[in-house]
């Protein structure tokens, strides 16, 4: 001990019948070095003997672990789904409002209102207008709307960062393979991690392409090769004639990753490695 104070055991300063306090001490306490806690506890009068000490410790440890488990499990996949959907809503709302602003702004301030049709220029124009000093009540309203667009866009960005940080904690394997945003989207499309874990890989492959799938089932179209996973580099970066194979390989490993994430939660880097190998093989087909 560098500061001269001895490490304190979990039981110190808490009454032996205060289960809640003891559980908190187990969860929140720490020590540099272990000591002979059972003997020290008996010596300090915390427990009559070591058997009583272990009984008390086990009760408090079960309480602590079960409280911590519930907290960590508070349906984190559902929180992720909410965050992703909110981010998607924000994109839509921001674009809609930015369009309105472009039209209104152009009429009042002249210029094109930054209207080139894409979202980024709409937001850039909102920044420009928000910085203006309004000269009359009309301009006041326009500048206020511009401020809202800027705020909405900032929140969208914050939510995106949240999803990127959270997805690997909710589904480490899925996020590693799909990337955090696509992982979150697949979980959202399925309705949760458990639901995704129970889907066959053929369903994972076309999640998000439901319209095309139903058109196919009614005999109006060929079967879709991919849904939301299209944005993945393994699909998009593969030549069109091999994209179906790449999408099937990717979906297969995503389905496995979702199962591992749901049932064990353990990170298994071998899934990524196997997929990479498989994609390399698919892509090298056309090269010889």
């Amino acid at each position, binding site marked *: 001990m560098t500061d001269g104070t001895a490490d304190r055991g979990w039981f110190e300063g808490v009454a032996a019948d205060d289960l809640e306090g003891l559980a908190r001490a187990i969860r929140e306490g720490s020590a540099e*070095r*272990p000591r002979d806690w059972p003997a020290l506890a008996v010596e300090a009068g915390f427990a009559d003997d070591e058997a009583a000490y272990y009984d008390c*410790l086990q009760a408090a440890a079960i309480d602590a672990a079960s409280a911590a488990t519930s907290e960590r499990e508070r349906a984190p996949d559902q929180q992720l789904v909410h965050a992703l959907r909110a981010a998607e809503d924000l994109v839509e709302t921001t674009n809609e409002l930015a369009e309105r602003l472009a039209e209104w702004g152009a009429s009042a301030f002249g210029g094109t209102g930054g209207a080139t049709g894409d979202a980024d220029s709409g937001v850039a124009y909102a920044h420009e207008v928000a910085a203006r000093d309004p000269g009359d009540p009309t301009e006041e309203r326009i500048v206020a709307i511009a401020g809202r667009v800027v705020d909405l866009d900032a929140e969208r960005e914050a939510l995106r960062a949240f999803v990127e940080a959270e997805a690997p904690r909710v589904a480490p394997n899925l996020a590693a393979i799909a990337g955090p945003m696509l992982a979150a989207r697949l979980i959202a499309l399925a309705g949760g991690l458990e639901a995704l874990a129970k889907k066959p890989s053929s369903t994972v492959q076309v999640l998000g392409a439901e319209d095309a799938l139903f058109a196919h089932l009614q005999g109006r179209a060929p079967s879709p090769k991919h849904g939301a996973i299209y944005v993945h580099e393994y699909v998009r970066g593969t030549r069109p004639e091999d994209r179906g194979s790449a999408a099937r390989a990717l979906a297969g490993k995503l389905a496995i990753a979702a199962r591992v994430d749901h049932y064990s939660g353990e990170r298994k880097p071998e899934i990524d490695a196997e997929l990479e190998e498989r994609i390399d093989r698919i892509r090298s087909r056309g090269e010889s």
Partner: protein
Amino acid sequence: MTLPEGVAYREIDGERRLATRGEPVYGEPTEGEWRAWVAARSKVGAMLDREMDVGLSPGGTVLYLGAAAGTTASHVADVADVVYAVEFAPRPTRELLGVAGDRANLIPLLKDARDPGTYAHVVESGIDLLVQDVATRGQAEVALANRRFLADDGRLALSIKARSEDVTAAPEAVFGDVLDRLREGYEILDRERLDPLHEAHLAVVAAPR
């Protein structure tokens, strides 16, 4: 090598199987008070089956890192006096809590084995057996960091998973690296590959030095 007291080969379901005495946990076959210790589901079970001296003994204290759902930890608790079972993932911890409900000597801890300071105020010093089965990179570092709990004559029973360290490297090369780092704090007493029961796993028995 003779098996630790409390562990025996018994005739269960017409087969000679490794077994301990206790409440069944994971649907394993039983015969009277004995329940089969399924070596394919347990690295420590596989180590005993290979006649490795893991240092498990009645009356001893055990710190088990990576207890998962408690499959193996439950057998260890059938034999040892006290088992501190550390697991970091919430989902398996749920099942571990169920196992602890049936065994007064199993103390579940939802903690990160890479950060022993977060449980050194609970786990006692002078531990007789440190079992480690964590699927994380830096398995040697985890063993070194937790050496502080071990008694001078204690034992480390370590299962190294090659793929957790490096998926692409050859397992033998990974094991060599891990053993080299492990030697900074341990003397290696015995080692054996657990294939085919546990693919690309190396079991190590070591003593602190």
